[in-house]
């Protein structure tokens, strides 16, 4: 098992490095350590309060989605590109375990790298005189929701990677679904004009996320069981 985890970590180390650089850059900009013009959103500055700003949360969602998609595609396509599916599937572990380890490693890495900028920024912001604003831990809600949702984006990208279909047509569909639903839920969290009857509560949001994640895992395992990797 540990060998499989090591293998996956070796395959995605560069994604981890890029994501970490992105996270650090985001933190550097948000905590006002630079006046770089590459600020991700107009109006985000040390004086403003990023945790509750739609601009920052939008950028965070975009960046974390990119990372999650990269993880999903790299982990699902790596064996195909290197031609190692045949080798891997003839090891004395079942397909389920092999793919399950991939999903586990990818989900944990995505979650950690997504939580890192949100929690780090919140810890920084909670210190007095770091930010010209009061701090309440409840402000973490949208950031945490985005971080959690990025796991679904990872699973969607992974399913797109392993599904035997055409890239120009339905292969990308499973990857599109969490992004579309995430945009809807994100609008519900931030946009007051969204009608209440189409917006879930916080608990419903979490339930939808867990249910979708379960559906993705079931679908991925099923596709991997059926697919001919020859």
């Amino acid at each position: 098992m540990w060998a499989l985890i090591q293998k996956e970590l070796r395959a995605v180390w560069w994604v981890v490095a890029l994501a970490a650089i992105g996270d650090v850059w985001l933190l550097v900009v948000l905590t006002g350590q630079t006046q770089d013009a590459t600020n991700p959103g107009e109006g985000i500055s040390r004086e403003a309060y990023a945790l509750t700003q739609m601009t920052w949360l939008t950028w965070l969602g975009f960046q974390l989605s990119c990372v999650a998609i990269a993880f999903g595609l790299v982990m699902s396509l790596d064996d195909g590109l290197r031609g190692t599916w045949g080798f891997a599937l003839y090891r004395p572990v079942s397909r389920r375990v092999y793919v399950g380890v991939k999903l586990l490693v990818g989900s944990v890495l995505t979650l950690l790298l997504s939580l890192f900028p949100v929690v780090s920024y919140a810890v920084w912001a909670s210190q007095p005189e770091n930010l010209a604003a009061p701090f309440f831990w409840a402000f973490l809600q949208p950031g945490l929701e985005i971080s959690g949702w990025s796991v679904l984006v990872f699973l969607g990208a992974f399913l797109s990677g392993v599904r035997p279909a055409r890239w120009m047509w339905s292969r990308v569909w499973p990857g599109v679904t969490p992004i579309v639903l995430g945009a809807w839920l994100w609008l519900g969290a931030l946009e007051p004009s969204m009608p209440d009857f189409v917006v879930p509560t916080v608990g419903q949001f979490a339930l939808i996320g867990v249910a979708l994640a379960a559906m993705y895992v079931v679908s991925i395992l099923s596709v991997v069981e059926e697919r001919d990797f020859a």
Partner: protein
Amino acid sequence: MSGSRRTTRLRLSDACQALLLTVAATVVWFFAILFFGGIVEEVLRKTDDAVSENHSLTYQHDGFPIWITTRYRHGIIELTECRDLDGKPVGMKPEEANAHQHALIDARIFRQPKRHHWMEDSRHLNFENRQVSFFERTGDRGHFVIFHATTRRRIGFIGPEGFSEHPLPAEKQYLVRERGDQAAVMPGFATAIFYGARLTDFPTGSQNLWFVREPGGRRVHLVDLEQRTSRVAHDGEPVLAMCFDWQRDIGQKSLPLESPRIVLRTETALKVVEPAEAGAVRLVEEIRFPSRLHHAAQLNWIRTPDGPLFDLLLDDDRHQLIWANAAGEVIRERTIESRSPNLDGRAFWMLPLLQSPLVADVLARVMVNEDELNSDGIDRAKAQALGLIFARGKRLPIRDAVMPLALLHLSTLLWSALAVRRLRRFGASTGEQVFWGGWILIGGFPGYLAFRVHRDWHVGRALLPVVTEQTGKSAHPTAAAAAAAAAAARESSRDGVKRLLVRCSETAVLVADASAVFVYGVMLRIGLTPGHAALVMKEVRVSLGLVVAASIGFVFVVGKLTVSSGFGFMSQFFGIFESTMPFFQMPPFGNLSLLFAVSLAVMQVMSESRHEAWLFSLHRPISRRAIVIIKLAVGLVLLLVTTAVPIVMYSLWAARPGTHPSPFEWGMTEAAWRHWWCVPPVYLGTLLMMLRPARWLGTRVLPCAAGLWWFLRREAWGLSLWPIGWEFSVLLAIDAVFVICLLLVIREREYP
């Protein structure tokens, strides 16, 4: 997926994929509808002038109500027509509008959207004069907190007794919650907009003035964040709503007041007060309003020289105008109805086009009761419980929706039947047939798309014996397989769509061949050897598809810029601006040119790599250098010609008299040509990136990045201000460097 271990049982993963794929299919389908709907709409439209007919009520300085009826737009010019209540045209300049329009919405019905509870404890108010202000709640009490924007230290706190540098104890803070009733912390400007009300265009004031209406409304505080003061604006009869009156009248003009008057709405009257000395307020006037307005959720008061005018919104289309005196006696009233082309019952006939029953049912529910859509910030249930008159949104009669929805649901039967038919043909279990048939009745056409793509449905797939996991035996007898093979073959031959696609691709290949042969002939005529001419022909043939695609894109962009009928839909997808003066702003050819340059270079190299043709090419009796020079020469010529044509077309259109109402000089096209000349470095950089043997995560992308960086940063570096000859020369030098690098790479690289 032949050879896979697919079974025909219905499994959990089928249900999961049905949901996941249907969501994506719905998005794909709706985008397709939007795209093609936009094209059809624009082709049918006779003129590109955007005309909107939208009746919105406004008031002249003397209180005369008028409709703003029609807005015409051509490019950046907008014209507005106004009519009086009897439909006669009237003229009104913006400065002649009445400056005393106040929307007073009952503060009791304000509510926080249900996913916004995380914002409850602190609210960002403003950021002015290097200070940042928040309203911070601590349980049932709250206070204003002011931070220094630079030092990020708390400057102090504002409570009912005024400013303090030290944190306020609970008893010295504002009461914000009592027996389930919440305080309203409201800005002193644009109150109606803040509450998401239907009226707009209200006078705005400073962001520093805020109201705090305590629970119950008996006490209202006026807080000035700049002066750091708080005074009691009202103490007595419960106040339902409040706003400022910022304007004073001088003749026919209105000028802003230095110190605004405060308008307080109680259940029966409006009280206008103004700040006085020693933190007190002075009553300026009191206006009682007619009894029928006592329960208006939103009271619109317009001050006129003849007395108060009240506008009671009955619904989206109807206003009841009530002229009264200060004692609350009605002098005159009139109910007026907007003639705006709002939704009517015919709109339901768009629903069958969606072909998604679930989405259509939700939309129909919204159209039948639009209030649900406009529920932002207002608790309508509470308004109803309090017996308030609330302007209801447009409610379409549900009977109008019956036929369209019936048609929609019946049409989904077709998709369902098609799915079941396919499942039967492929020997699916009854459970699977029932599931997908039912799912498509809910998901409609997107559900059917999801069904088709959730697994491979190759025509010959039914021939393969389906191996079950349990037994490992064939599920189809040989005779059945043979019958299925015959049926599949028949289906294949009948598939008109596939035949059409094949025919189209064959025609495209013929055209490409003919073009390549023509180019070959031309190359021979200008003296190239047959070997070199053949290489040119090959490169042209590889690039022709991209050239055609880019040309179509440029035709669309030029069509949109020249305000040609049928191209307006472009702005919905690519955000092309409209300008009445050609080349006044940079025409949006750059992005498409960049995309074309990068794709062309990638295509030229990938066509060799993907078909493993490098070894074949390099073993022809022609040098490597000649191969790469021909490749980039053909690419450059195609790139420069393709990207120059739209600039020329647009210039020729602009130079023709009568095409646009602005002057044109050929010199105005200089910026476009400068951009055009910046594209070759991007192309050459991409070509170098594709040919260089380096790591993608290392230095391989640098040449492309360099070309793009130049293109994107030239304005910032001030290169666009250089004389055009200098910039062209510098770019030529950069091109030469890229070409030298390319020749070096092609000479030294090893090609397995």
